[in-house]
Structures are given as structure tokens and as C-alpha cells.
């Protein structure tokens, strides 16, 4: 009873907030609805017993990615009326992308049901690794059977990160207000001040 209630609550909220993501007039509201959708999707993950994935979804997507989304959307002054005007122009493209996503979903579920990759059992349950916690079984799979795929995924991300840094890094630009903390700490009063007793009328030379 409780599980069914929780499922319908989370599922309804995911669908509702996903709908409002599209319908919201204000882009900031749109992002906030998207965050609510992420959060409820994490709730669904917990119900099927994938609590590790659920927590990662919240930490990575809700806690970091969506904050940056929100950041950008708040800073940009998007004219939503203009975006709405071009709705009909982009409509066929949107339908095409939706169709591709639907086909991928059907294909993915079909492949999973036939049980080819041994990712899970075909009956629709998650792969049973009895007597182990969620994290341990994911770790055993990622660092055991799929080690090379996992490492290469990491390498691709590293390359992407290096690429992003190379694109934004500008060599030779004067670094304004650069602070050398060791130098600041090593500085003593004697380095900056002199105590002199000039004769009257002579003054000091600097």
C-alpha cells in the first residue's frame, strides 16, 4: 500500500513537473520545475531499490548541474515571447527528437528484456547480487567486469575537461591582483618601513 502510494506520488509529480517545465512562462521557473522532476525521479529510483543511483542523481544533477543551469538562466535576460514566436518553426525538429528518444527507449527496453548484456534479469527486476549492498555490487561491476569501459569513460571526461580549459585559458593576459600568500606572510615590518630622524629643514629622500 505504502509503496504503491509512494510510486504514484513520485510518478505523478515527475510527470506534472516535467509538463510545467515546458509550460512555465518564466525560464527560471522552468529550471526549478526541472529540478523538482529530477528530485522525484530520485524518489522513484529509491522505490526500485537503487538508492545509490538515487543519491548520485540528487548530488550530481540537482546539487551541481541544475545549480549551474539556474545560475546561467538567472544571469541571462531571456526574452521568452521571442522564443515562443519561433515555436512553430522548431516544431518539426522537436517532434523528430522526441521520436528518436521514444525509439531509443523502446529499443533499450527490448534489448534489456532479451537479456543480452547480462545487465539484469529479463523479468524486469534488477540484477540480484544477494547479500551485498547496492554500492558494493555497483563497485564490483564497474571495477570488475566493466573496468575498461569505465576507465575509458573517465578518460573521455578528462579529455573534455582539458579541452574546456584550453578553450578558456588565455596565455599572457596580465593577471590582475595576483596574490602570493607566502610572500605576504614572509614580509616583515622592516621590509616596508624605515625609521629615520631627519634634521629639520632637510626632509627625507625616498
Amino acid at each position: 500500500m505504502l509503496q504503491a502510494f509512494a510510486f504514484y506520488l513520485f510518478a505523478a509529480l515527475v510527470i506534472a513537473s516535467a509538463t510545467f517545465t515546458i509550460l512555465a512562462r518564466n525560464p527560471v521557473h522552468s529550471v526549478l520545475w526541472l529540478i523538482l522532476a529530477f528530485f522525484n525521479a530520485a524518489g522513484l529510483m529509491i522505490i526500485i531499490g537503487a538508492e545509490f543511483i538515487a543519491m548520485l542523481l540528487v548530488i550530481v544533477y540537482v546539487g551541481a548541474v541544475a545549480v549551474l543551469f539556474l545560475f546561467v538562466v538567472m544571469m541571462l535576460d531571456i526574452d521568452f515571447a521571442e522564443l515562443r514566436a519561433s515555436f512553430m518553426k522548431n516544431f518539426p525538429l522537436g517532434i523528430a527528437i522526441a521520436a528518436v528518444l521514444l525509439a531509443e527507449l523502446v529499443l533499450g527496453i527490448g534489448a534489456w528484456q532479451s537479456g543480452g548484456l547480462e545487465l539484469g534479469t529479463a523479468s524486469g527486476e534488477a540484477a540480484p547480487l544477494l547479500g551485498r549492498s547496492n554500492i558494493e555490487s555497483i563497485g564490483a561491476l564497474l571495477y570488475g567486469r566493466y573496468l575498461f569501459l569505465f576507465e575509458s569513460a573517465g578518460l573521455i571526461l578528462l579529455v573534455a575537461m582539458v579541452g574546456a580549459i584550453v578553450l578558456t585559458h588565455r596565455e599572457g593576459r596580465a593577471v590582475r591582483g595576483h596574490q602570493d600568500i607566502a610572500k605576504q606572510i614572509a614580509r616583515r615590518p622592516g621590509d616596508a618601513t624605515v625609521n629615520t630622524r631627519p634634521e629639520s629643514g632637510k626632509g627625507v629622500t625616498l
Partner: protein
Amino acid sequence: MIPVFEGWGMSYEAAWTVSTIAGILLIALPLMLAVAMVIYVDRKIWAAMALRRGPNVVGPFGLLQSFADGLKVFLQETIVPSAANKGLFLIAPIITFTVALAAWAVVPFNSGAVLADINVGLLYILAVSSLGVYGVVMSGWASNSKYPFFSAMRAAAQMISYEVSIGFILICVVLWAGSFNMNEIVLAQRGHGLGIVNGFVFNLLLFPMWVMFLISSLAETARAPFDLTEAESELVAGYQTEYSSMSFALFWLGEYANVLLMCTLNAVLFFGGWLPPLEIGFLYWIPGFVWLLLKIAFFFFVFSWIKATVPRFRYDQLMRLGWKVFLPLSLAFVVLVSGWLMFTRYGA
């Protein structure tokens, strides 16, 4: 608690619901009381360090000061600026407050005394604390005012930066404990220092991690010296500028609940949680939650000590500390700790 309620003739689901609600109340109500007292303690400590008296009028020694403040704030009128985004403006403090309470679900108060004894406990805390930034960002944006907006931008950048290094620090702890479950992390610290003292902090590899965690938790809760989000000399009162009455009080309560949570995390992850500090038999006669409360009180004193003595960081210094010092250091320690564990525990 579930078997007790089942013994009264309830079905399992009813017993679960009732015991969960009872557990939530058992944690949330004392927490609210603790927040009220802690605000008083905070003011008393600053006062003592500044050679003032602090609150001493309401009740004996001024003990009821926070309740008087609460009552005053409760009776005030809630003002919503006309240009503000009304819905978000009112939701933002509620989010801050709720999120600050929700994280306490997985905190172990004694052996087995946890509301939700889940095996991803630490990840849950990380997830919930990363939600805290939304309250600040939403309030800053919804206020439709300059200073709150600046403050929200600062808060978002600051919290994300320090969450990265906090994540790596927690990974070191988890590697050593071998579990994400909070209770198992506490138990792994039993007799950790040569079998005499309890706590990961007595480990040479984890001690620097604790120092970094303490500093990062100051930054994560936006306490001094990292309170740039409400730097009154630049931003009036930061994201709270446009708030009044109960919505302001909710921010205040949430903030202090978060500070208490960070003190608890310091105690649980590095100082043995509900274990007594020394591994001696008779110290276990004192119930575990007393030890935990003492440790939390100690860390709270450290927090207000820092607030009373350390000047505020500049924003670029804060970013530099997060990204250029803590991130590489904590990464290096993840490699060190896992290498050491491979060498000693899982070797061959």
C-alpha cells in the same frame, strides 16, 4: 520502535507510519529547542570574547532571550516586496528550513538510535546539504533586488566549490570505514588510535582531512570567516535583506540547524560520534547520546570562537582556498589513503 507499536495490535504499515512520525518529532522538536539555545550560547560566547555581558535580561541569565525573539518575530507582519516573485519568495525560506531538518534523519544518536538506518547515509547527507543552496539562490532571485541577487550568486559559487572538496574528504573517511552507513562509520572508529582513543582524527592520514573538513564546513554553512553571502559591509544582509517576520526566522533557524548538523558531522565522522573519547569500559556507562551532545557542544564552541576572532575572507581568497588548496590536497589524500589501505588492508 516498530515492534512496540506492532505489539499494540497495529499492522506493520500502521506501526511503521506511527513510529516514523514519532521519530521525526523526537528529533525535530529537541532540535528546534537546541537551535534556540544555541543562538543564545552563540551570543553569550561572542559577548564573553568581546568583554561584554551578552543577553542577560529575559529569564535567568537571559536564557529565554531566543524565545522572546521568536515571539517578537512571530507577531510581526510578513512583508512581501511588490516587485518580488511572490511564490518563490515565500517558498525559499521553507526550503532552507526543511532541508536543514531533513538531513538529521540519518544522524546516529546512539548505537542503533537512527531514524533511517540506510546504507547510503553519508551520501544522503551530501545530497540533502547540496539542496540547501536552492533556498539561498531562490530567495536572492525572487527578492528582485540587487544585493540579495549578488548574495545568491556568491552563495551558489561558494557552496558548490566547497562541496567538491568535502566530497573528497568524505571519500577518505568512507574508504577507511568501509561503509557509507553512519553507524558503521562510528563503529569503525572504535579503538582507532592504538586501541586507546576512539576517532578517526587520531589517524595521521585522516587528521589533515579533519582540519580541512572543519574549514570546509565553515564555508559550507557560510559562517565567519566565510560569511560572504551576508557580508553586511557590502551586501546589507545578503539574501535575507528583503525578508521579515517568520520568513526571516525560518532562514535563521535553518542556518543554525545547518551549523549544528556540521558540528555533528565533525563529531560523527572524525571524533567517534556516540562513542566515549577513550576506549575504557566504564565510560560506556554514560549513554552514547551524552557523549555525542558533548562533542557537538565542543564543536559549536569552536565555531563561535572562530566567528568571534577571525576576520572575513575576501571572495577571491575564498575561491583560491577552495579550488587551489583544498581540492588538490584532498585529491592527493584520496590517493594516499586508498594506497595505504591497499597496502595494509586489502594487499596481496
